[in-house]
């Protein structure tokens, strides 16, 4: 388990490229939650991409180069936190392996590893957050994103906090731990397989009868929202941080227009 955090720890937010470009609301929700938990949040301007696309393509040189930039940008912080199990998993589980033969960067990657967290598990496991001050009137279901679940053990933490959101009822998604078919570049390299997987996922989501789908990773959310919307589904899609921070009213759901009815 995590060491006791310093008082008011200094947290570097790793925004992730998809949140930066597609959904800044999630970034602000993360800042909001971290500040409520007593953290001082900074957003290093030098950050771009964690390097996972290059790493998974087999391009170790580019991946290592991007990894070094992330390490350098975040070295001074008590913690690095990302609203994504996938990017946090890349930094935490793969940088050390990627740079293991580098006598300078290997140990630096290793040190960063122990200070890097996915947002919701950081709030619960490190900061000891037990409840959130937020409300949502409705039924939600939750998809466990693969890297967060299997690399970082993010499973109970989001459910625990969602359980404290006023008015919210959580209906479990059957096969919640099965991949949605995003897989980074997989979804465009093998679109037919990806489509089959996200079709299955969308059917299961719709069958829960929940009115909102939540998950902790923008990639999966874009994929599932894109499929649900293409199917004409009315299920709304949001990042779990938006509901936990109580900012779900401030932006339209993912893949929906900002115009409000009535």
């Amino acid at each position, binding site marked *: 388990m995590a060491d006791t955090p310093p008082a008011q720890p200094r947290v570097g937010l790793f925004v992730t490229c998809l949140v930066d470009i597609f959904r800044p609301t999630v970034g602000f929700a993360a800042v909001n939650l971290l500040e409520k938990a007593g953290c001082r949040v900074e957003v290093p301007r030098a950050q771009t*991409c964690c390097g996972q696309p290059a790493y998974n393509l087999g391009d170790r040189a580019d991946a290592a180069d991007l990894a070094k930039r992330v390490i350098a940008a975040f070295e001074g912080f008590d913690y690095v936190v990302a609203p994504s199990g996938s990017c946090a998993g890349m930094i935490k589980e793969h940088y050390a392996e990627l740079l293991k033969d580098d006598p300078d960067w290997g140990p630096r990657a290793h040190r960063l590893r122990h200070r890097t967290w996915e947002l919701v598990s950081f709030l619960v496991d490190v900061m000891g957050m037990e409840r959130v001050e937020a409300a949502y009137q409705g039924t939600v279901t939750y998809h466990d994103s693969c890297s967060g679940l299997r690399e970082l053990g993010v499973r109970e933490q989001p459910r625990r906090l969602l359980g404290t959101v006023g008015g919210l009822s959580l209906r479990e998604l059957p096969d919640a731990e099965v991949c949605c078919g995003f897989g980074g570049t997989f979804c465009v*390299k093998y679109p037919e397989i990806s489509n089959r997987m996200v079709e299955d996922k969308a059917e299961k989501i719709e069958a829960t009868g929940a009115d909102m789908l939540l998950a902790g990773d923008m990639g999966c959310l874009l994929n599932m929202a894109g499929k649900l919307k293409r199917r004409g589904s009315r299920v709304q899609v949001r990042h779990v941080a938006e509901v936990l921070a109580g900012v779900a009213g401030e932006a339209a759901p993912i893949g929906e227009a900002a115009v409000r009815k009535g």
Partner: protein
Amino acid sequence: MESTSHAFKDNVHEALRDERLQRALGKMKVGFQGNRRRAIERLPEFEALRDEGRAIKDHVLEHLDFYLERFESRVVEAGGHVHWCRTAAEARETIARICRDAGARTVTKGKSMVAEEIAINDHLEREGFEPIETDLGEYIIQLRREPPSHIIAPAVHLSKEDVAEAFYAAHRDLDPERSLVEPTALISEARAMLRQKFQQADVGITGANFLIAETGSTVIVTNEGNGDLTQTLPRVHVVLASLEKVVPTLEDASTILRLLARSATGQEFSAYTTFSTGPRRPGDPDGPQEFHVVLLDNGRTAMLGTEFQEMLRCIRCGACMNHCPVYASVGGHAYGWVYPGPMGAVLTPSLIGVDAAGHLPNASTFCGRCESVCPMRIPLPKMMRHWREKEYAAGLTPATQRWGLGFWAWFARRPGLYHLGTRLAAGLLGRLGRRQGRLRRLPLAGGWTDWRDMPAPEGRTFQQLWAERRESARREDAR
């Protein structure tokens, strides 16, 4: 067997349109996963057993020469023969020679993935023998002249209607009006056909789940009992095994056996676990007169000492494919060679070359479910990534991906330019998709938008908004 792994995408396209296959895959997923989960919930020490199993195999792989030589000497002491075969061709020829020397006509066969790997049936037929598969699933696919689609459930892609069709077509001597609607009718018919073959067989070929170095025994696990009849009734028993199947002791085999059936079918143990040590001894009530072990390398020793060595821990339980969402979508034949699913995605490039099987390690989302259920804790996604690294280094990665991600990496190394570019992209896409909140078509993104909408960005990047927020906070402070 001829590989069609290079045509993986075409295979996938076909498989996704095959309604019978899709129905069969839907059923398979539910059965295997639930059975495994329940079996493991009943065994609290399962995780510790996984560690033990891994340690046994790792130890063997570090001392493979020692244990194989010990195994050989024990087999010889028991009156058997060991044939070391470097390649599939050597193994095929060795087995054909044993059959010729035995004056064989009918050759019964237990289920063996290594036999599929070396395509022994085709070879034996060419040499004038009649090979008969005796595992029900293998028998069915032999009649259909197709490869297995799963390593423990070779006919899992078929429905009982498919099986009935195959039986009507093959068993011409039987009444064409007979009913083959009930599964029991299919089973009795197969049993009757196979009984004749068991009695006629001159040579029986089985695989091996384990080779035991301390005793020279070979072990098979089956659920139908066909393996026992295959190896005890004919005059000659040939065990065909790849060399990483060796374990030091009986105790080690029993440790791994506790993992195997639970991971595979959710059984605590298979119905039959059969040990063979040498030919029939004086006073034995049954057993073969000759006992041969054909030990196959076929590229495995070349994996030792490489980043793929851990793959040789595999005990062929099939849990990885039973939990793989890609396998569940397309089935085993799409992978185009003998070993499908995640274990195939790592092993196939090792055995037939990454240039022929390059798609397989790429067709994964790295969801990690395979590794999470692997009883031997084989890091399958990591090894698939290693194959991608080899493809990248050898220039086999498709140019669009190399250039696309190469450009992304170039861009991501320049934060100033990156923040400008992302701001422009978010602004443009945000405006294009503002009305509906999503885009139904996007140039150069057909891989995405042919199948699903692209949610539109909110319009401004987080970095842009964060900078503004900081700026206004600073002004506030200055006031």
